[in-house]
């Protein structure tokens, strides 16, 4: 909870409740989106910025309903295009905190192009991708993240198209911040959202979100409470990559690959393990981590990559300031009269 200066000048204390709208939440009972919404609302007061300076922009899909439930400015736009609207808003109003809420179909199928470009431009946005590996709003077709062979309403004999790894795509698109969370892990999600907000630039957060109607249990194998510690690994900057209930397993480099090792076995010590460096300029290790899947590997969670690069909106503002400094502010009369002019008496 934090105090924020309001436009009226008076100090007001914001709480989670201030970010709840009067709109009835219409997701299916049991949907993972509820948890994401709750954590988002809970985190907002922590940011210490006035509510009117926060904007949530979404595309189309179940996840994209989220702006209706956030008592901030909001824009529920068209399928796949939220990054474009957010880019225009942030570039024209850099002082606003602009969040993009999207899903696996919205961001990676119909809006795939925009995700690539918003990331490479490094527009200072938080992009939260609710990945449930299915099309929920249209009632159960496969998505670009559905596993190969998946049987859905539109693939009764199994899909024949290979899925995308959202974080691999983000890293390939020059993303400066890449993280992963799970809907059911409140603390991890808080951490990822907070870090995404603090990052200057496009922050891409994938949240594994359970669709209990059309793809129930898609992540259960490694996210269920009783197995999570052994089947996921939470990345921590500067620390060796250790996981497991007993903290007895780790990751190390073997040739060009990452391998899972047991600490203490065959003389392996903590010193042999990879140390997570989220700020490493070379994205190669972050990319390898983004490819790791259960059951071959523990699934990495947390912040994969956080590097600094000037943001698009800041560069745009600076370029204009520099030109004005060098050439002076524009006068219409002067550009009206560019080139040769003549007077008719």
């Amino acid at each position, binding site marked *: 909870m934090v105090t924020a200066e309001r436009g009226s000048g008076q100090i007001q204390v914001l709480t989670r409740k201030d970010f709840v709208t009067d709109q009835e939440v219409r997701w299916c009972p049991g949907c993972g989106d509820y948890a994401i919404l709750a954590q988002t609302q809970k985190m907002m007061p922590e940011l210490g910025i006035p509510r009117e300076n926060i904007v949530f922009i979404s595309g189309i899909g179940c996840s994209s309903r989220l702006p209706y439930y956030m008592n901030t400015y909001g824009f529920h736009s068209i399928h796949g295009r939220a990054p474009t609207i957010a880019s*225009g808003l942030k570039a024209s109003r850099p002082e606003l905190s602009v969040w993009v809420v999207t899903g696996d179909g919205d961001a990676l199928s119909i809006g795939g192009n925009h995700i690539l470009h918003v990331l490479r431009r490094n527009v200072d946005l938080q992009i939260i991708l609710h990945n449930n590996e299915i099309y929920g709003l249209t009632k159960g077709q496969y998505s670009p993240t559905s596993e190969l062979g998946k049987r859905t309403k539109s693939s009764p004999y199994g899909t024949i198209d290979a899925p995308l790894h959202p974080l691999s795509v983000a890293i390939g698109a020059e993303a400066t911040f890449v993280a992963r969370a799970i809907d059911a892990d409140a603390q991890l999600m808080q951490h990822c959202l907070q870090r995404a907000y603090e990052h200057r630039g496009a922050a891409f957060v994938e949240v594994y979100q359970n669709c209990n109607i059309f793809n129930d249990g898609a992540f259960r194998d490694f996210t269920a409470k009783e197995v999570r510690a052994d089947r996921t690994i939470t990345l921590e900057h500067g620390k060796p990559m250790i996981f497991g209930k007993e903290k007895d397993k780790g990751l190390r480099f073997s040739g060009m690959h990452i391998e899972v090792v047991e600490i203490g076995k065959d003389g392996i010590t903590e010193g042999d393990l990879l140390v997570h460096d989220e700020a490493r300029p070379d994205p190669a290790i972050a990319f390898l981590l983004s490819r790791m899947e259960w059951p071959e590997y523990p699934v990495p969670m947390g912040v994969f990559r956080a590097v600094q690069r000037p943001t698009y909106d800041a560069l745009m503002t600076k370029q204009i300031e520099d030109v004005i400094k060098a050439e002076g502010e524009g006068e219409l009369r002067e550009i009206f009269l560019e080139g040769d002019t003549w007077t008719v008496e």
Partner: protein
Amino acid sequence: MATVTTKDTVSPGHQEILELERVTIRFAGDSGDGMQLAGTQFTKTSAVIGNDISTFPDIPAEIRAPQGSLPGVSGFQVSFSSQDIFTPGDQPDVLVAMNPAALKTNLGDLPRGGLLIVNEDEFNETNLKKAAYASNPLEDGSLQAYRVYRVPISVLNSGALKDSGLTPVQVDRCKNMFALGLMFWMYSRPLETTLHWIDEKFGKNPAVCEANKAALKSGYHFGETTEMFATHYHVPKAKLKPGLYRNITGNEATALGFITASKLAGRQLFYGSYPITPASDVLHELSRFKRFGVKTFQAEDEIAAIGAAIGASFGGSLGLTGTSGPGLALKSEAIGLAVMVELPLVIMDVQRAGPSTGMPTKTEQADLLQAMFGRNGESPVAIVAPATASDCFSMAVEAWRIAIKYRTPVIFLSDAYLGMGSEPWLVPDISSLPKIEPNFASDPATFKPYARDPKTLARPWAIPGTPDLEHRIGGLEKSDITGNVSYDPANHDKMVHLRAEKIERITQDIPDVVVDGDQSGGLLVLGWGSTYGVITTAVQRARAQGKKVSAAHFRHLNPLPPNLGELMRRYDRVLMPEINLGQMRMLLRAKFLVDIEGLNKVSGRPFTIAEVERKIAEMIG
């Protein structure tokens, strides 16, 4: 038409000077020959010495087609006159052909008896073959109908520049200046404007600078000293409305109009665009104007371009996007979103010949129905169309005035002919232009996202950063007043009607159409957009012959000017020339039940005056 009016003085040389009212010259050559440049310079000088001017470039779609080939021919037509002119001329009086391909592709437009100046050095076997000439037209008698001047431009140019220190390739590049110099002499134009321009352009490279100046001067002196030309010509100053003028293309005027609107509204201009011919010039222009705080966003595609513009409008900027036909198709869904969220937005479409990729550098008016209806659902938008290159300025400001006042997307429907063509522009007095008030919402006590202004039906523009006006908008149907999502049948019915009614109410800000000619009876030639010039000229000529014909032109396409239906009914017959298969005619017939006849052409080229005159004659004798 080169009308000879008086025969007067004798030049300082030995040739006679003829005074002409109007001349049209076409410079044609290989796309690497610098014809656009020669044409532009001729235009500038003609404007500066006080002629009325009108130009039209004819640029190949291929950037660098093989040298000397037919598809690689680039042309620039300029018409200059001592009278008001409205078009770049139907046919050239003079054709400057720099090679056989240029001759072949342009000769068809030169009337019999026309002046033909050819660079005879380029009429060699290789070039004749590239232009598919079986024999040399300079020698086989096929040009007998024209007044042909064979000038060894390449040889004379390289002779003049032999001490320039430039490579033969660099020397050859100056031959457009030689040709230009010769035309300057032939039409009694001073060299100063172009000499000054060369200094500015090549100042950093003294050898190139001097060579271009030398080529220009040698072309001029060649005309003066050779005995080849018996006459040269003079076109006196035009009697234009007094004031300060500059030459301007439609695309330049459009960009200036948008910046002016942003100044008048006191809001930042944000331009989201994806490069597309013939609209990219506007992106180039606006990206130069950083010192006006203009933000330009070269998007990854057409959809992102309009998405970013909508985002900027949501934030209180003037969100603008621009494109040509294929891009407008891609933007359709997002325009529908802007209709639903009722935010100010301007979409510029510089139309080109379609469908699909069509002919990117050629003009057409065939996106009208796409602009009107090319979206799902009942999705009305306002549409304006400039009539001339300089009118692009006024209509760009007008588009913003409507968009902001009525909180609606407005399509600005220009075309390749207007965008690339140029004419003199009477520079407006900025202080005379009325301010545009954004009127942002700010009062939480009264704010309802979809409450409406009783007069305009506009909803409030409440921008992020305004305390206690936090609200959500989107593409789902809105509940009247509150803006909450609603699937209620009666509400949807009401909202569809409200959105349509809001666009109709723009009529209250649109002036009546004014008739040039008789107020009733006879034939009315009615037009919209870039046909203004030909219609005006053709009707003036027909009236001069005593024909009962009048002209009217409108620039607000949706909604239409208030008096349009009543106006059409006052005439016996109505003719509408359009560069499409009759799109506006169909709309007007459906709306007003008036039997409008069409003159339609879709060749990628504007109408000629003669075509419209012929149609008038056919209809009323």
